[in-house]
C-alpha cells in the first residue's frame, strides 16, 4: 500500500495506471494536462504497458478510444470543458455502441468568455449521451472511482461508458493524501477486460450499420435498461471495493441525515465544504444533514425519495445552470419526488459558477435562510450574484 500526497489530476493518472488501461488517447486542455503528462511518463517508463495515441483533438481522442474499445481493449481518456463539448458526437457513439470507455472530465466552465475555473455545465450538457457520471469530491475518491468505473462499465449488464468528474483546480490541482492499494489487490478486484462483443477476425461481424425503425427503438430500450441495472452494479462494486480496501462507495453519500429536518442536496467539492457547514450548524442546534449525489447518471431516484420522506425541507445547491430552466440537480431531485404522496418543499440554489469560491459561510447562510423560510420556492436563488 502506498499513501501519497498527490494532485487530483495525478489521482486520475494513477487510477488509470492501476486499472492497467491498454489504450489511451488524449488531447491536452487546461486543467487536465497533468493527467496525460503523468500517463505519458508511465507509458514511456514502461510502468504502464499501454498504447498512448496523442491525437489532434478531443473529438479524435474519443474516436480513438471508440476504435480501441471496439477491438476489445480497455480504453481511457481525460478532458475538460470545451474538449468535452467537442467530443459530444463521439460520446453518443461510445454509449450507443456500448463501449465501456472510462473518461475523466475536469469540470471547467464553458466559454466565452474564457474561463478555466470550475462549474458543472460542461458535463451536465452531456447528461443525455448515455454515459454514467460520477461526481467526485476528494482525490481519494477520484483514484478509487477510476478503478471502480472500469469494473462497473465493463459489467455485462451495463456495457456503457463512464465519466468520472472532478472540479477544476479545487480537486484537479489540489494535493491531498491518496491511499493506493498494491497492484495485485487491484488486479484481483479488476481483472482484465474480456469484451463480449468485439471486432474479431475469427467471428467477423459488422458493428453500427444502418438500422431501420423496426429495431432502433428496442436498442434504446435496452440501453436505458442497462443504465437502470447499473444502479445496483454501482452499489455492488462500491461495496466490494469497500470490503477489499476499506473505503465504501455508493450512489449517494449521506452525512448526518439521521434526525435531520433540513437536508442539503450537493455534489462534488461543494459537498465537502458543506460538511463543515453542517457541523457548525449542528453546533448551533440546527437539525441539518446533507446528501451528496455521487452518481448523477443513472440518477439515484429511489435514494432521493427515501431521504426526502424523512425530512421537512430539501435545498439543492447546483454549480450549474440549465438556461431557461434551473439548476439541473434541482430539476432531477424534484422530478424524482413529484409522484410521492408526501414530499418536502425543495429549494433550488445556484452557486459558484465559473469557479467562484464556495465558502463554509455561504452554505451556512443558505441553510439559515432556508430554515427561516427566506429562500424563494418557485424561483432560482442566485447565491452571491452581484445585482
Amino acid at each position, binding site marked *: 500500500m502506498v499513501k501519497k500526497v498527490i494532485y487530483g489530476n495525478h489521482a486520475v493518472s494513477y487510477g488509470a495506471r492501476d486499472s492497467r488501461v491498454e489504450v489511451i488517447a488524449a488531447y491536452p486542455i487546461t486543467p487536465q494536462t497533468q493527467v496525460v503528462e503523468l500517463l505519458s511518463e508511465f507509458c514511456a517508463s514502461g510502468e504502464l504497458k499501454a498504447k498512448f495515441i496523442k491525437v*489532434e*483533438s478531443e*473529438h479524435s481522442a474519443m474516436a480513438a478510444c*471508440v476504435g480501441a474499445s471496439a477491438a476489445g481493449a480497455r480504453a481511457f481518456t481525460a478532458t475538460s470543458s470545451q474538449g468535452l463539448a467537442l467530443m459530444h458526437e463521439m460520446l453518443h457513439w461510445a454509449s450507443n455502441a456500448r463501449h465501456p470507455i472510462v473518461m475523466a472530465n475536469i469540470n471547467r466552465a464553458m466559454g466565452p468568455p474564457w474561463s478555466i475555473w470550475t462549474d458543472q455545465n460542461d458535463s451536465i450538457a452531456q447528461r443525455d449521451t448515455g454515459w454514467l457520471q460520477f461526481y467526485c469530491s476528494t482525490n481519494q475518491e477520484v483514484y478509487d472511482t477510476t478503478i471502480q468505473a472500469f469494473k462497473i462499465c465493463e459489467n455485462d449488464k451495463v456495457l456503457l461508458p463512464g465519466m468520472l468528474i472532478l472540479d477544476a483546480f479545487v480537486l484537479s490541482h489540489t494535493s491531498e493524501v491518496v491511499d493506493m492499494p498494491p497492484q495485485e489487490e487491484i488486479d484481483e478486484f479488476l481483472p482484465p477486460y474480456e469484451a463480449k462483443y468485439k471486432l474479431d*477476425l475469427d467471428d467477423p461481424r459488422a458493428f*453500427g450499420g444502418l438500422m431501420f425503425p423496426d429495431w432502433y427503438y428496442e436498442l434504446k430500450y435496452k440501453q436505458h435498461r442497462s443504465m437502470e441495472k447499473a444502479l445496483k452494479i454501482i452499489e455492488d462494486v462500491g461495496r466490494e471495493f469497500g470490503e477489499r480496501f476499506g473505503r465504501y462507495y455508493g450512489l449517494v453519500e449521506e452525512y448526518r441525515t439521521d434526525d435531520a429536518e433540513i437536508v442539503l442536496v450537493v455534489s462534488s467539492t461543494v459537498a465537502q465544504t458543506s460538511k463543515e457547514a453542517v457541523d457548525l450548524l449542528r453546533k448551533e442546534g440546527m437539525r441539518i444533514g446533507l446528501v451528496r449525489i455521487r452518481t448523477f447518471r443513472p440518477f439515484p431516484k429511489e435514494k432521493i425519495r427515501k431521504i426526502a420522506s424523512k425530512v421537512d425541507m430539501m435545498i439543492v445547491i447546483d454549480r450549474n445552470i440549465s438556461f431557461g430552466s434551473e439548476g439541473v440537480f434541482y430539476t432531477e431531485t424534484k422530478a424524482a419526488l413529484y409522484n410521492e404522496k408526501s414530499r418536502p418543499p425543495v429549494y433550488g440554489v445556484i452557486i459558484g459558477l465559473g469557479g467562484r469560491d464556495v465558502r463554509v459561510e455561504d452554505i451556512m447562510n443558505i441553510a439559515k435562510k432556508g430554515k427561516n423560510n427566506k429562500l424563494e420556492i418557485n424561483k432560482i436563488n442566485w447565491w452571491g450574484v452581484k445585482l
Partner: protein
Amino acid sequence: MKLTIPEEELMYEGTVDCQGCGAGLAMRYALKALGKRTFVVIPACCWSIIAGPFPYSSLQVPLYHTAFETAAVVSSGIKAALEIKGIDATVMAWAGDGGTFDIGIQSLSGAAERNEDIIYVCYDNEAYMNTGIQRSSATPYKAWTTTTPRKYPKARPKKNIDEIMVAHEIPYVATASVAYPEDFIRKLQKAKNIKGTKFIHVLAPCPTGWRSLPEHTIKLARLAVQTCIFPIYEVEDGKYKINIKPKNPKPVEEYLKLQGRFRHLTEEDIKEIQEATNRKWKKLLKKEEFF
C-alpha cells in the same frame, strides 16, 4: 478464364449499391488485395448503406461503422488495440471523398502526422452521393451537383488531396482507378507490407451522381486516366512514379461528354479544363523527373 486479380471474393453479393457503382467494385478489389486478416472502418458515406443494413453485413471481415470525420482515428484506435493484444492484421479506413477531403481531413492529417500503421483508402466519387449529390471539395471544376446548379456550377478546382498527403511525409501515397484493378490491387498489397500511414485515392465513378450510364463506369474511370484528368501515380518515401502514362492523352471532352453533370459546359469551359489538365499533368511529369 484468365484471371489477372485474386479470385477469392470477400464481399458478399446482395449489396445495395446502385447499378454500376464504382465504390462497390473498389471494395471488391480492396478485399481481394488485403485478404481475411483485415479490419475495415467505414465512416458515413455510401458504404454505410452498402455494407448493411442491420442485421446483415456484406463483408467477410470485421467492420466498424463510425462517425463521418473519424475513419482515420478510429482505425488508429483499432490498430493500437490490436498491437497491444499482439494481433497482426491490417486496418483499412474506407471513406468517401467527403469523409476524406472535407470533414475527415483533420483526423486523417492527425493520423498521418503520427504515421499510424493503417491503410486509408478514399474512394472518390467527387460529391456527397449518399446524401444526394451535393458538392464536396473533391467535386471538379464546373461540375453540376444539387448544391452547384448548372447556372452556378462549382467555381473552384478539385482539392489536391494527394499532394496534401504527400506533404505529411508518410511512406506511401498512391492514386488508382477502378478501371485498372491490377494496379489498384498491387498498390494495396504493397501498402499492406509498409509500416506507417498509407493513403490510396481511388477514383470510383458514380452513375447516379455523374449522370452517366451504369455500363460506362469502367469506361469513365479509364478515360479519366487517359485524358490525364486523374493521373495514376504513387509516391513512395517522397519518390514519385507515374504508373500509367498515356502516350497521346485523349482530349478531356471525351471524358466530360459522357457525363450529364458536365452537360452545361461551353466550348470555352472545356478549353479551360483542357488547359488546366495539361498544366497539372506537366507539373506531375516534372515532379517525377525531379523527385
